[in-house]
């Protein structure tokens, strides 16, 4: 699509033309029924027709499952089919929330859930902050007139395309006890560390790897935001001889706020949902140092021999509710802040 197909080669033009014909033939098909529908539906109501396919798929594969999840959350036992499960009321929620001291997971009925809660909060706070800092820094550097900018931009984006499992395996291979990182450190005269077995290091690497895998995406969003800032604003500032730092704080940052908010919300949603990468990388260990909420849900409801779907569903509903609430607050804040 777009500029990609402007090749001088005759074959390229032919293929492009053929694709164009195909596109026309296929997309022309619904012309008649749609025209008939248009004749009947006045005003914007035709819009419903356009959203219908999307809503249908959403309804069947996203909303219906959530409804089923609600039923799971209110029922107990290990039966999978919803109709076989006995109703237990709020028991699953009670069990998840039963805690003598919320700060000490060992005092909770479901200690793993609370390890997950605290680890996730810690992870989100640190990961999102660092992610924004590094993405912003990279975007600022990439926004300079620099030789090879396109290449650099692509390089930072590359890991975004890799699947979480692949990302985790790549880093696991580097960080294992006999991995290349330890070899390098020992070669330089230092002492190797068993990176994924030390609680603090494992936590560090779970953050590092997730930033490595995702920062390219956020960098590009911020870069686009930076490039949308008109150059003459800066020129005016330069004439006022404002220091670079001052210009950054007074001009760049405020003008970049909308992009930053998008990065913040998307980054936070993804950070709260962190699972695959870390699960393959550390398995949640050492001990429970990198057990995050989605892993708790996955293990209780899906990977255990006796599956506690009720607990898993209750946990996921709590998680989704928290995320939703937070996102709405953010959006409201954004709306209020916007001119």
């Amino acid at each position, binding site marked *: 699509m777009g500029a*990609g197909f402007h090749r001088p080669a005759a074959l390229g033009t032919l293929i492009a033309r053929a694709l164009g014909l195909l596109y026309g033939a296929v997309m022309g098909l619904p012309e008649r029924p749609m025209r008939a529908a248009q004749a009947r539906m006045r005003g*914007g109501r035709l819009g419903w027709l356009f959203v219908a396919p999307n809503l249908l798929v959403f309804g069947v594969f996203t909303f219906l499952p959530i409804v089923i999840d609600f039923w799971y959350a209110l029922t107990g036992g290990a039966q999978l089919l919803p109709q076989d499960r006995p109703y237990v009321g709020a028991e699953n929620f009670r069990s998840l929330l039963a805690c003598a001291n919320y700060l000490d997971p060992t005092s909770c009925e479901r200690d793993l859930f609370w390890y997950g809660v605290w680890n996730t909060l810690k992870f989100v706070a640190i990961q999102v902050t660092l992610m924004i800092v590094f993405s912003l820094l990279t975007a600022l550097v990439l926004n300079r007139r620099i030789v090879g900018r396109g290449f650099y931009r692509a*390089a930072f984006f*590359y890991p975004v395309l890799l699947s979480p499992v692949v990302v985790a395996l790549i880093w696991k291979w580097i960080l294992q006890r006999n991995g290349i990182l330890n070899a390098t450190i020992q070669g330089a005269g230092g002492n190797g560390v068993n990176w994924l077995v030390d609680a603090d290091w494992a936590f560090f690497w779970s953050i590092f790897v997730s930033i490595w895998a995702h920062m390219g995406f956020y960098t590009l969003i911020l*870069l686009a935001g930076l490039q949308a800032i008109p150059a003459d604003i800066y020129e005016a500032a330069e004439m006022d001889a404002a220091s670079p730092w001052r210009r950054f704080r007074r001009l760049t940052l405020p003008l970049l706020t909308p992009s930053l908010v998008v990065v913040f919300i998307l980054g936070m949603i993804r950070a709260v949902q962190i699972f695959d990468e870390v699960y393959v990388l550390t398995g949640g260990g050492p001990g429970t140092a990198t057990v995050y909420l989605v892993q708790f849900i996955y293990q209780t409801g*899906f990977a255990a021999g006796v599956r506690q779907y009720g607990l898993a569903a209750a946990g996921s509903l709590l998680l989704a509710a928290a995320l939703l609430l937070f996102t709405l607050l953010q959006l409201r804040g954004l709306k209020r802040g916007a001119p």
Partner: protein
Amino acid sequence: MLAARRGRSGWDWTDWASHFYLLLGVALMFGPVLWLFVSSVKTQAALDTFPPTFLPWEQKQATLPGHAGALPVFQIMAGDRAGQSLVQIRRIGLEAQLASPDDPAKIARVPISQLRPELRLHASWSNYTDLLRKFDFGLYFLNSVFITVVATVLTLLVNSMAAFALSKYRFKGREPVFLVMLATLTIPPTIVLVPNYLIASALGLTNSLWGVIFPAVATPTGVFMLRQYMLTLPDEILEAARMDNASEWRIYWRIVLPLSAPALAVLAIFSVMWRWNDFLWPMVVLSRSDVFTLPIALFSFQGDLQTQWQYLLAMTACTLLPVTLIFVFLQRYVTQGVASVGVK
């Protein structure tokens, strides 16, 4: 711009710092993947050597008359045979029996502490060929390609239709629909896995490639991205077309879609990446090997009791390669596209 090069004085320190930072970044982004590729052609023995070598070294092997099979070659480091390179026949405790191919009858007994394996450079492609020989690579590749292509086309169609309506029509319920779609972003896919399977099963979609395709074609990210982009298209173009008595459908596919090409390209690339990398959902919904996708087939070598890194690395490289190739050829459009669509 912030600290843009001033031009006059040539390179100042901020340029040096920027380049240093970017080069470091490039090394950090590509290095690990490169290391994976290099490691994936090492033999199991080479993988277990510590410290690892960068290139795939392997112990040299030779045949010895009177002995079956290939035997390892050692260099002798000390004693009266120092400097010789001999073939090891067998090792008994701390002592090895070696001989030279020229004189296989004369057996030398050397303490193993005086031996060093003789190495040669050798890419062990057998990690790949072993893997590929074990299954019908073509079939799984085609399954993956089919899912990726069809799901991407449908994703583009379904999401752009929704985005068109949400950006260009005013109808009751538009805002709620949009918000509800966005809200689904907050649902981690893992938690609807089981109910989704029950639904797919009720619809007869299990063990069918469509079972992977259909649930994937409505993405909140896609709708959001396309809607934001379409909002920037001026309504006047649409009005002009309506004057010419074009139907709404025609306006959608003849005018709005071509104008949204950059955003569609980005969504296409994301969709390709998502579907190609998908693992958990296909594994649940597909249980027959004739409909397996490449990642599932590759991971079918993961047994209960062991992890074999030499195969795991080759498998990882196999799944990574197509995405990397696409990226190499299309990176300009990808990154420009994301940048242009990212925030509007």
